[in-house]
């Protein structure tokens, strides 16, 4: 939209959230959430159901008001200048509600008009999003008769029809089959070229591959926020190495004790005459080359040498469990 252009020179972050709290009655849905999102970032909200992801998104989209705290999108306050914000935000709520009694093109045109596009502009934009999300075949179909994958693309097309600066997608891939998930994921990745994107999910690999930054929600708080790589590194110190060697346990015992980089080891017998060793290296070092060299020099047959890579799944479980204790 035309007035989006004057937002671009501002070096400020696209989304600024400060001390956001939302109470439902006396029960807090989110507590003291603060973060900023830069232009062009894809941020993933991650957390179990009921952690406060949807509530945060609804406040950002201008649907709910926060009990405390401020949200600014492109410099506009969500509470004070709600309509200015809504003009700049494309929001797809959870479960992607659509009017099932409308046809795809008709629906998108209706939505474009609601979002303030003129007659000609709405026609052009609807054509553009239909093209972009490959909906040409379905353009004349009733939304109620579409498959879930198509519906999801209609929802994305709707969120994008007014060329918003910020796109907020609540659980965009829930209930889709793996093939559809991939299609939607690719759509989202393309969006990041021109938009700031927030997506939420309770499935980790979902946000891990698409997002430049992750925010982990737990019981209404943001318990961790960083790039997927950094989050992984934070917990990298506990990366363990598994080795299976054919040697006497006592000899192995002394070998590991002699190795200064091994902080902790445990040896268990495996099938045959192999021993399974679980090694915890100091400072998250990768000891695999050293171990391989050692086995070769001692002439121990080696049949496995792996390093547990901490997946974000572990991090997620780790962080949320720690919080419960």
């Amino acid at each position, binding site marked *: 939209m035309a007035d989006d252009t004057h937002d671009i020179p501002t070096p400020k972050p696209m989304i600024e959230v400060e001390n956001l709290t939302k109470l439902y009655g006396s029960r807090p849905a989110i507590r003291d959430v603060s973060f900023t999102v830069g232009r062009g970032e894809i941020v993933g909200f991650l957390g179990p159901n009921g952690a406060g992801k949807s509530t945060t998104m609804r406040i950002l989209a*201008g649907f709910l008001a926060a009990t405390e705290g401020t949200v600014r999108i492109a410099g506009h306050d969500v509470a004070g200048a709600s309509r200015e914000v809504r003009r700049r935000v494309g929001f797809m709520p959870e*479960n992607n509600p659509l009017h099932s009694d409308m046809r795809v093109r008709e629906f998108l045109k209706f939505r474009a008009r609601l979002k303030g596009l003129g007659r000609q502009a709405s026609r052009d934009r609807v054509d553009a999003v239909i093209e972009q999300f490959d909906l040409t075949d379905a353009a004349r179909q009733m939304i109620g008769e579409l498959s879930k994958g198509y519906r999801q693309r209609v929802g994305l097309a709707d969120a994008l029809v007014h060329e918003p600066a910020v796109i907020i997608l609540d659980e965009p891939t829930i209930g889709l089959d793996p093939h559809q998930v991939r299609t939607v994921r690719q759509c989202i990745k393309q969006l990041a070229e021109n938009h700031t994107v927030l997506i939420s999910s309770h499935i980790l690999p979902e946000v891990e591959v698409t997002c430049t930054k992750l925010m982990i929600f737990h019981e209404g708080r943001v318990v961790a926020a960083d790039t997927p790589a950094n989050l992984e590194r934070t917990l990298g110190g506990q990366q363990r190495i598994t080795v299976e060697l054919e040697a006497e346990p006592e000899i192995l015992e002394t070998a590991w004790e002699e190795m200064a980089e091994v902080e902790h080891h445990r040896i268990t017998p495996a099938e045959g005459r192999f021993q399974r060793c679980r090694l915890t290296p100091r400072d998250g070092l990768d000891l695999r080359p050293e171990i391989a060299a050692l086995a070769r020099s001692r002439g121990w047959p080696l049949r496995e040498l792996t390093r547990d890579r901490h997946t974000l799944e572990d991090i997620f479980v780790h962080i949320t469990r720690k919080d419960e204790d």
Partner: protein
Amino acid sequence: MGTFITLTRRELAGHFLSFRGYVILAGVQFLLGLSLLLIVDALNNRPFDLPITEKFPSTGLFWLVLLLVTPVITMRTFAREKSTGTFETLMTTPVSDLQVVLAKFTGALGFYLLTFLPMAAFPFILKHYAAVFPEVDTGPVASTFLGIALIGSFFMALGCFTSSLTRSQIVAAMTSFTLGTGIFMVGLLGEISPPADTPLYAALRHISVLEHMKDFSSGIIDSRHVIFYLSLTAVFLFLTCQAIGSRRWK
């Protein structure tokens, strides 16, 4: 304004895109047809020198339409969007609460008025088939329609309000039916109690929907009635705005 028109068109279309819309149309036509039958019957039995429209509210079928059909028309306005979730996508577009409320109200009222449209032909049908029938007096016909529209708009606003309170269409319909019938019954109370010179009786007469309709159907446009319905409509639309704005309350 453009947004309001877009929304209103969608609302009206929504009524016609559902099976429910046609059930309502058929039901109303049946009841109105029945009322025509009763009017013909009345004309057969004894001479009638009053405006023919005056017979209309006293057949009772109009009240059946008003009390039963208006909740069914309005129940979908907000409750349906809330239950399907489209309310969220609607309210996150740059529309104002007032635009949404007015559009939903206008759409519902428009559909309600359209269901009464065939009734405009009744005087002419009667004229065509009656052996002796005076000229159709358009004045009372117009004022009857004004009455139908004004009373209807109040019931529509009431229905929009109850629909905005819940996500269940059934609950919305039941609530507005109960409230609407309650108001109607209060008027009826003034009707059945013996005339008395008490303030209570005067008050009952003043808010009697039956009394108002009697005036409208005999060609009297009393500004008190007009203001009564317009202000009640405004009050309930205001309450609807508050109800849907309540999600933004802290």
